[in-house]
């Protein structure tokens, strides 16, 4: 055990022990411990195996980014163990080790490592190609990820939208100070901290640091700043749209906060950079920050004999911390020209170190403090291209971005007082700029509340410049070591890759996969650039850096999916469907009955007696005005100028490219009043399409378009007995076949409900009346129909039955039997294309399409064997070949004909009636089928619908 006596800054609660397991073995820690601190306190040194060479690995940075700390917790893979707090009963395991963490047999690849250089995968597993499936299986076992359990129960993830004036990324001293100053200047501030508490590096600092952290955190709490801890600003997008991943939430597993920040303050501090030398990935080689967190926050001593290679005051402070913790410390000071060359030790970890002067020291802990990486990620995402400062040995922002302000270590160095002063100035500037942005947004709202006063001057950045402390440029020793710990890429791999010609930083990154692993460049980007610069004999500034892209921290798929905001739509008859055995289907936003248990029986009954279907999702647009005929003529390809009051017409709409967009019927209800129906899925599109023409090309047309899809409950009454049924409920319309003919519309009172309209159309191929009832009364009419039709054998039917019946009748469905290339002439309805109209949407393309003999056309198809139903999307091929010449677009077993019926698209050359087709079934079998004379498999003359 290496748990120390109580430390002044410890964040663990010794009164609350927590038991958990590590690879099945009982472990214990305290509330507030991370998995890492509890494991190290329990004497664990090796926590993972490296990705390629299976080398044993221990904690190196001991924070969220630790590339060696990914573990499995229960069914959750890839948990960052130096960040995740322990909980009672937690089952923690090492990931992807085989057969065990201590003895990973694949470590043999480590012996072969001189052969497994960069690009190894590309070179080795290319040929022969037929072995790829085997390669894939072997390579998959090397994937670094944990185990996914398909039986993991569903857990709640959430989303939130926030509109703060200022978002501050980073809750260290400067982030807190900036948030305080901004709030003090009247801004609404959201402060986002990556760790479990505010404080940043002050938390593992000295007494003065900790007092300051407590003071700032208390001030933040009383200043009305909203604080999100264990949360990360994962991305910054256009106009300061920021994505914040909130990992700790009282209810949700994870929450994605989408915050529109008027100003974003970037204050993430600095990330300590590892030093590259032989053996730098041995367990027990750690960064100074890792050691300070272990000792000061968790009272854990990670080693007893330490060698500390330091180039900065933070490294020096680690020496003091270790000595206080009772470790022997030997300091190797880079500023005095001293250096380390090689870490010694076997699979259990570091045992010694060779210094640059040739001395060999024994140690069980080798600490490096070689410098800093500026995590400029959010600045990159805002358009900055940070530049390298040779004297300070790190990158700095180069561009001034009005609504994104950096402070803290990103901006420069100084005493805590100087840094806080800069941060306060940043906070005040952010608040002032947020006000200016707010004013602009207000002013851009033409008809909103009047804006108060003149637009303020854009606040000028008058912050004092921070100094840049010189720092030795330490990247690699005289030996080669690991650069990317996640992806197991060494500096030697990189030098080799550069020699092979992958010598630009972007190419090198992709070829070696350096910076592409779970730590995403936080630790390794600058070393990658430095190694490449050295290999090319250039400076770091000349090589440049890769671009940091979102997300800054991982976001789970659950959080991205989150809570759905899509509305769910149901008709007013829905409760009846639920109570009467309907099996539902999702159709866009609608939930509607697919069937009531027996779609074939529903179809037969509708053909013989009468059936009713809830067709409410059918798109409905109320069109009013003197110029409606012009609009209709423009949208549809056929003629509409002379549609009489009381008549209904079918039409097809095409886009300007001639491709079928939608279809439906439109009826003229009154002199200047029309009702248009669209497909259920096309309602929104057609509305926008109509508005497009009315607002852009023809603003002179006087037409009002109102979407009324949910304003009416729509019921299709179909079957030979439908007239008898409707007659029982409608008294004010003459239903005689000569008085109310096929393709006519009437307003009617149905079952006592006024202001309904009904039309005679026939998608199912039967005599049918489509009733459109003011939505609130839909259920009343539905139940009245069922009651009045009892002796007629009435049964409800669903979408599946309708699909069967319309296919029997040969009616196509836009989007099912047509696709993104199907132009009007392909569907065989030449009477619907009236090219003598002066203009309509898609006219030129449709004119030219008439001459096209190369694109598929829609035909009805019947398989030779009536019992075989080819799957929809089955290919039609030229006999004896694999050449595709068409496909089945719809297929069903017809209960009426007791045989299979299809629609399909085929090349014109095989589209003549009687043409024999070869259809490839899903199991590879080939069947024959025949092209029919008419699209309609039943009643091609339409006697039933006209009855």
């Amino acid at each position, binding site marked *: 055990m290496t748990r120390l006596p109580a430390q002044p800054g410890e964040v663990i609660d010794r009164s609350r022990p927590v038991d958990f397991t590590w690879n099945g073995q009982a472990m214990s820690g305290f509330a507030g411990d991370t998995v890492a601190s509890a494991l190290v306190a329990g004497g664990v040194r090796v926590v993972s195996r490296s990705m390629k060479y299976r080398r044993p690995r221990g904690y190196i940075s001991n924070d969220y980014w630790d590339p060696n700390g990914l573990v499995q917790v229960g069914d959750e893979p890839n948990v960052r163990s130096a960040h995740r707090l322990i909980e009672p009963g937690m089952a923690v395991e090492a990931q992807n080790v085989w057969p065990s963490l201590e003895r990973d047999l694949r470590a043999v690849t480590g012996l072969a490592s001189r052969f497994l250089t960069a690009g190894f995968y590309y070179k080795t597993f290319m040929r022969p190609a037929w072995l790829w499936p085997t390669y894939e299986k072997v390579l998959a076992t090397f994937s670094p990820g944990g185990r996914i359990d398909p039986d993991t129960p569903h857990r709640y993830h959430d989303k939130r939208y926030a509109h703060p004036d200022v978002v501050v990324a980073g809750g260290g001293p400067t982030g807190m100070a900036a948030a305080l100053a901004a709030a003090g200047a009247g801004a609404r501030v959201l402060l986002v901290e990556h760790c479990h508490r505010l404080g940043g590096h002050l938390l593992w600092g000295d007494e003065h640091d900790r007092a300051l952290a407590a003071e700032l955190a208390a001030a933040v709490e009383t200043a009305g700043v909203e604080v999100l801890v264990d949360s990360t600003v994962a991305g910054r997008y256009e106009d300061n749209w920021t994505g914040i991943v909130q990992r700790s939430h009282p209810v949700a597993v994870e929450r994605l906060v989408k915050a529109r920040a008027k100003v974003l303050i970037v204050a993430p501090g600095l990330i300590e950079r590892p030093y590259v030398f032989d053996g730098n990935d041995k367990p027990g080689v750690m960064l100074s920050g890792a050691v300070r967190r272990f000792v000061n926050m968790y009272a854990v001593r990670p080693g007893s004999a330490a060698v500390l290679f330091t180039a900065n005051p933070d490294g020096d402070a680690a020496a003091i911390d270790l000595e206080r913790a009772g470790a022997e410390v030997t300091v190797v000071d880079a500023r005095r020209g001293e250096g380390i060359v090689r870490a010694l030790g076997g699979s259990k970890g570091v045992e010694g170190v060779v210094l640059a002067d040739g001395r060999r020291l024994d140690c069980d802990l080798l600490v490096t403090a070689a410098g800093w990486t500026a995590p400029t990620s959010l600045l990159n995402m805002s358009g900055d291209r940070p530049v390298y400062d040779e004297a300070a040995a790190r990158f700095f922002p180069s561009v001034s971005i009005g609504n994104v302000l950096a402070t803290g270590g990103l901006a420069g160095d100084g005493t805590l007082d100087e840094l806080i002063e800069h941060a306060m100035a940043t906070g005040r500037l952010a608040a002032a700029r947020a006000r200016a942005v707010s004013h602009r947004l207000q002013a851009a709202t*033409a008809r909103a509340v009047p804006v108060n006063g003149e637009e303020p001057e854009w606040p000028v950045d008058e912050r004092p410049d921070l100094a840049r402390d010189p720092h030795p440029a330490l990247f690699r020793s005289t030996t080669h070591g690991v650069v990317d710990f996640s992806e197991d890429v060494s500096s030697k791999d990189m030098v080799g890759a550069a020699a092979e010609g992958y010598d630009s930083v972007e190419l090198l990154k992709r070829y070696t996969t350096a910076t592409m692993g779970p730590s995403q460049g936080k630790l390794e980007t600058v070393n990658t650039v430095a190694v490449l610069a050295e290999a090319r004999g250039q400076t770091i500034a000349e090589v440049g850096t890769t671009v940091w892209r979102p997300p800054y921290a991982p976001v789970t798929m659950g959080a991205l999916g989150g809570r759905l905001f899509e509305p769910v739509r149901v008709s007013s008859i829905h409760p009846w469907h639920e109570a009467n055995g309907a099996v539902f289907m999702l159709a866009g936003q609608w939930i509607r009955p697919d069937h009531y248990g027996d779609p074939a029986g529903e179809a037969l009954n509708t053909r013989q007696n009468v059936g009713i279907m809830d067709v409410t999702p059918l798109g409905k647009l109320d069109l009013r005005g003197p110029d409606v005929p012009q609009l209709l003529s423009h949208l549809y390809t056929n003629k509409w100028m002379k549609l009489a009051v009381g008549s209904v017409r079918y039409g097809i709409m095409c886009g300007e490219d001639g491709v079928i967009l939608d279809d439906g019927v439109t009826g003229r209800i009154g002199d200047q009043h029309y009702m248009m129906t669209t497909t259920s899925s096309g309602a929104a599109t057609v509305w926008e399409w109509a508005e*497009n023409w009315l607002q852009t090309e023809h603003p002179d047309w006087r037409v009002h378009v109102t979407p009324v899809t949910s304003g009416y409950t729509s019921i299709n009454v179909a079957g030979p007995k439908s007239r008898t049924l409707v007659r029982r409920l409608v008294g004010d319309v003459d239903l005689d076949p000569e008085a109310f003919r096929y393709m006519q519309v009437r307003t009617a009172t149905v079952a006592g409900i006024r202001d309904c309209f009904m039309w005679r159309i026939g998608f199912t191929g039967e005599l049918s009346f489509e009733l459109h009832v003011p939505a609130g009364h839909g259920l009343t009419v539905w139940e009245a129909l069922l009651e009045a039709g009892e002796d007629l054998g009435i049964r409800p039917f669903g979408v599946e039955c309708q699909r069967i019946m319309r296919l029997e009748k040969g009616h196509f469905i836009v989007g099912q039997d047509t696709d993104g290339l199907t132009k009007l002439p392909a569907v065989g309805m030449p009477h619907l294309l009236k090219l003598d109209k002066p203009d309509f949407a898609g006219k030129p393309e449709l004119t030219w399409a008439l001459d096209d003999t190369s694109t598929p056309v829609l035909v009805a198809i019947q398989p030779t064997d009536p019992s075989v139903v080819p799957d929809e999307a089955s290919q039609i091929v030229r006999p004896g070949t694999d050449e595709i010449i068409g496909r089945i677009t719809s297929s069903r077993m017809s209960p009426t004909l007791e045989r299979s019926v299809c629609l399909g698209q085929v090349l014109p050359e095989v589209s003549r009636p009687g043409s024999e087709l070869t259809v490839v079934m899903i199991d590879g079998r080939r069947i024959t089928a025949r092209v029919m004379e008419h699209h309609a498999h039943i009643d091609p003359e339409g006697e039933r619908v006209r009855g």
Partner: protein
Amino acid sequence: MLIVPCPNCGPRNAADLRYVGESRPRPDPNSASAKEWRAYLYERANPAGMLRETWYCRSGCRRYFVLERDTVSNEFTNPPTPVAKLGKRP
């Protein structure tokens, strides 16, 4: 996500609108050659710089309008113009 200044609804998330794209005049459908018509359908200048483009405020006022945007900086410059006021064909 971009903020788009709708002339009626004010600044809105781009997801509230539909991006119609580069504004192009519609050729005369009765005299246009295939080349002209397909240029209208498919060809876009796609400049790095100022672009006149059409938006549709689908979740708000339901109006089409034209904006000028710098495609490099994503800044909108001119106040929006209702499409109808642009006149019809050139």
